[in-house]
């Protein structure tokens, strides 16, 4: 198990290296970048840029500095802020984004798996139809539609919850954003769980478990759940990506001071440094999340560990 984890870790290195190198060249090629006299940026920023990018040195040295900086966690200067560089801006936004993302992720898994299991065990009865409805709403309505509707209903008309902002950080500010983020994934996860559960319950080893008289609770919880979760875990990798992109919209609509909102503002203002830096950060994050997912998958399915 450990050796599998280690091997997977090693395999992420080439991926990251290629991605990072690609970003290096993108920055050099981009029109309006620091290497392009066309754009007029404030002098303080130009100074930061020049200092950071060592434009007078040969390309290979620039590249080495670039990689070295990345390894130290320095993502370069921002084009729109002279006081904070990219890494610092990300750090400021990180706790908010992390809280939002993690909560939504966990909520989606718990609700999705629970509803999916119920749908599988009580096929074509009430829980199954609830499932269908939840999937439909969550998957079809884009999050930028659900958000304003919920804001209108719960924030303005009923005034139960705040319409946006982080406020004092208390729970009520999180409720709407987390629901909007989690809903589409809860829907998809429950659909996957349902299908998978139905398939697993028809397997021969479940028949053996039943024949042993261990009872329905253990049969489902101990024998069926683990194998049934495999497709769900496979989905979690891409799900992390989608959650990330979802956070862009959710943070913008609800006015939450997370990385997503900084990113969007930077993109609209053509702040390449910030945009590129954030993309690199997100990429590294996603690669590691996928690594985690692979490890969890190997725990569920012992056959994978020897590959």
């Amino acid at each position, binding site marked *: 198990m450990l050796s599998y984890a280690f091997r997977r870790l090693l395999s992420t290195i080439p991926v990251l290296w290629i991605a990072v190198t690609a970003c290096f060249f993108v920055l050099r090629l981009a029109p309006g970048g620091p290497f392009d006299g066309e754009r007029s940026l404030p002098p303080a920023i130009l100074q930061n840029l020049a200092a950071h990018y060592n434009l007078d040195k040969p390309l290979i040295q620039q590249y080495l500095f670039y990689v070295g900086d990345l390894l130290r966690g320095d993502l370069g200067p921002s084009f729109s802020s002279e006081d904070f560089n990219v890494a610092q801006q990300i750090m400021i936004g990180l706790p908010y984004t992390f809280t939002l993302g993690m909560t939504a992720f966990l909520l989606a898994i718990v609700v999705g798996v629970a509803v999916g299991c119920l749908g599988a065990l009580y096929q074509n009865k009430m829980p199954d139809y609830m499932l269908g409805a939840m999937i439909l709403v969550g998957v079809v309505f884009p999050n930028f539609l659900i958000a304003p509707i919920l804001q209108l209903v719960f924030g303005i008309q009923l005034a139960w919850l705040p319409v946006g902002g982080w406020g004092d950080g208390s729970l009520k500010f999180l409720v709407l954003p987390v629901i909007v983020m989690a809903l589409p994934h809860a829907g998809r996860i429950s659909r996957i769980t349902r299908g998978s559960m139905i398939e697993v319950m028809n397997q*021969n*080893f479940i028949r053996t478990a*039943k024949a*042993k008289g*261990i009872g329905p609770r253990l049969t489902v919880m*101990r024998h069926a759940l*683990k194998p049934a979760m495999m497709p769900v875990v496979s989905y979690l990798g891409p799900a992390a990506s989608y959650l990330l992109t979802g956070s862009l919209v959710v943070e913008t609509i609800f006015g939450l001071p997370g990385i997503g909102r900084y990113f969007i503002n930077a993109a609209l203002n053509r702040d390449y440094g910030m945009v590129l830096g954030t993309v690199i950060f997100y990429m590294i994050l996603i690669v590691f999340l996928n690594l985690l997912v692979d490890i969890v998958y190997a725990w569920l399915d012992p056959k994978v560990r020897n590959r």
Partner: protein
Amino acid sequence: MTTNTEKEVLLQLKDYSITFKTPEGDVKAVSNMNLTVRRGERIAIVGESGSGKSQTFLGIMGLLAKNGQTSGQALLEGRDVLALKPRELDKVRGKDMAMVFQDPMTALNPSLKISRQLTEQLEIHRGFTAKAASVEALDMLKRVGIPDPERRFNLYPHELSGGMRQRIVIAMALLTKPKLLIADEPTTALDVTIQAQILDLFNDLTAEMNTALLMITHDLGVVAGLADRVAVMYAGRIVEEAPVDELFENPAHPYTAALHAAIPRPDQDVDDLVVIPGRPPNLQHLPKGCNFSPRCPKVQDGCIDRPPQLETLAPQHCAACFHPFPRREELLTHA
């Protein structure tokens, strides 16, 4: 050897039927079956695919598909298991009656260790602690002939061969010392060389533990080596029942005789293989008379009017046929 009547009755099937409801109509997989199994007895149930031999016992274990319905009674030590609620049935299956299935490659849970799959029954049915259960399970592994059991105890099923998996499945079934062991074609999916070993295992262990054995098979060779008594099934009914030697010497029902004749012999020419003509019965449209009549070489007018009942032809030997084959001694005396 004690005679059969001296041993206690363990399982009794009375007027037992199984019907499957399908969109195309009802399918009667088993019709009005009667069978008695005594403690420690070895009975072989013989039949082709579709004869209902597996469904009969899946039914008493409560493992039928959702559209299957049982009727009649299945008395295990006097208790009708068909009438038990699910929770009560769970106390019986895996404990007093156990089942071993055909395909060892899919019978075990691929994501749980062998140890977990073996000990859970002991913990649930007999209240063992985890430690005590492990000890007992390891001991059973030795008895079923797994080499180096301590190492294999913590492995996953896919790390073991088919033969070993089947041994583990057998170990699992016998751990709680059940009174009845049902084995559904346990050797069909295995190599010929392993088959003999597994059959010996069944032989030895059930004898040791005085467990009654119900061996479901389509292979008469398996029957010969293992059974005390044989019940032959066709289209959901028992058509002949006899002690094993008697069945081989004097097969009475034409179907049984055909099965005998169809056993290939090593010195036989390929062109001479005997087959049973006709097609397997359609369980949705069974004939009015004898189920075997469409394929029977001895069919006569009376056979298609009403179904034959089991008639006793000799001590403990009965057959459901209007024109059974005569016994060898009768042939000899008539010669």
